[in-house]
């Protein structure tokens, strides 16, 4: 039986936008594998079909598959019964995720954080304006599951669902799609934050406070609290990123302020280990 996607999983195979395309494909598929959205041994669609689904050329796709093979996330077999297959690599997940985090510059993390802050903040404000008790039930359920979830991947999936549900409570299909896209992009990285019990507890408390503000119809408070949820998560990711300067693919040293790289073309992120 062919398997396909849930909300997060569906975005795995949607067209890629403005990011450097090879890197974007590598990230999209790599994160899906790290998050368990694509299972070990699962066959990816054929190259022409996958390229069409992602909205990239087959050349781009092949480069991306090559990078994924180098990272050990995909194996390709030729000939009859061949194709590209998902391989979930051996070894500690955390180490792989930290290496993955090393391929993000702090500026990119800041930028995706800004985007997510805007989306979740707006979603919370609108939800507070438009909510009814039925909307809140899903959010409460997700929060309970988040607090109880054992492994980081499960926590990340439920945490993503919370934000999707918040945007759905705002009655906005667009904000909901944005949340789904954001979590497809950084859901795997957030495992690094959510695996830390201290941060998990703090985030659960903060998300609970968002629900309270939404329930009270306190629009600005809901917005501020949702923004803080995002800022805390992304702040922790940046800390982890800065604490691991020697990791693969990191930008060269501390001189990443404006000016030093301004004249360079957009950086080609190295997503594989050297």
């Amino acid at each position: 039986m062919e398997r396909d996607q849930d909300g997060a999983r569906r975005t795995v195979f949607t067209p890629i936008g403005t990011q450097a395309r090879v890197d974007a494909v590598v990230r999209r598929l790599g994160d899906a594998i790290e998050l368990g959205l694509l299972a070990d041994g699962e066959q990816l669609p054929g190259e022409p079909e996958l390229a069409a689904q992602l909205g990239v050329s087959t050349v781009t796709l092949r480069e991306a598959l090559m990078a994924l093979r180098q990272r050990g996330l995909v194996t390709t077999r030729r000939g009859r019964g061949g194709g590209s297959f998902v391989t979930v690599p051996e070894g500690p997940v955390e180490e792989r995720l930290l290496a993955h985090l090393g391929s993000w510059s702090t500026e990119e993390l800041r930028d995706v954080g800004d985007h997510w802050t805007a989306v979740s903040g707006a979603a919370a404000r609108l939800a507070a304006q438009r909510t009814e008790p039925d909307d809140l039930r899903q959010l409460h359920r997700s929060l309970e599951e988040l607090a109880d979830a054992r492994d980081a991947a499960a926590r990340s999936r439920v945490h993503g669902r919370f934000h999707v549900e918040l945007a759905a409570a705002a009655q906005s299909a667009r904000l909901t799609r944005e949340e789904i896209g954001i979590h497809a992009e950084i859901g795997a990285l957030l495992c690094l934050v959510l695996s830390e019990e201290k941060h998990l507890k703090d985030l659960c408390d903060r998300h609970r406070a968002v629900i309270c503000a939404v329930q009270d119809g306190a629009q600005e408070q809901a917005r501020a609290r949702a923004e803080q949820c995002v800022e805390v998560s992304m702040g922790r990711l940046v800390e982890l990123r800065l604490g691991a300067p020697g990791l693969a693919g990191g930008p060269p040293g501390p001189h990443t302020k404006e000016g030093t790289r301004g004249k360079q073309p957009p950086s080609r992120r190295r997503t594989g280990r050297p």
Partner: protein
Amino acid sequence: MGSSPRPAGGPDVLDEAASADVAAADVAAGVRDTLESVFDTVAETRTDTAALLAPLTAEGRQPTTADLAALRPGLHERLSRPGPVSGVGFVAAPGLLADAPVWLEWWQSGAGGEVRPLLLDLDPEHSAYSDYTHWEWFALARDTGQRAVAGPYVDYLCSDEYSLTLSAPVTVEGRFTGVAAADVYLPAFEAAVMPVLQRLPGPACLVNSRGRVAVSTDARHLAGSLLKGPDFGAVLAGNGEGASYEGLRLRPCGDIPLILVTAAAEQPAAR
């Protein structure tokens, strides 16, 4: 809440109010007819599914996903009909099938009119969305045993669209086996209903039982917003005559759980 008081104006005012009232009744009837036609397709899926499952139940054999594939020709035909429906199918109750814990036999029509299956990964190991039994379109039909209109809501399980989902329980020998359902995306519903809504002399909106606006010609209360105050549930549970609330006229749309909200007829001579 009683029915709307008649305006106590002169003959002209009465005529005007009466004609507005007739138009509102027409609008309510139009909304009812639009969604009753969607419920007709739901009923067809329900009949097909029950007819498929009944002999298996009689044999004592548990159905499989392969058995449900027999629903496809009917589902495809329903999707290809003109009308506002964008998704149709049967959603199995957990545990119904022998080879899958949960299952949606669900088909959607794409922008180009092509019909395609919805393939969800409902393995709880991979998906945070594997439990669909809390969604209103499932829970309402299961718990009430009646057909249901869910939404408007953002359907982040199947389409990521702002939708209405109409559903009905499928029971075999008294046992709930799942729901037959159809999706209407809000743009299609608005397109179907807006022309008749715009025939009204003043702004109006359609809300669900909790006051959520589905379609509106009032720019201050657009789809997705909440109208607060009236007990819309009581209007639906009432005698079909509707009610008045602080200058608003609330009118049910037949047996469809949506309410047409208009300004009560103006009474310039009376005040």
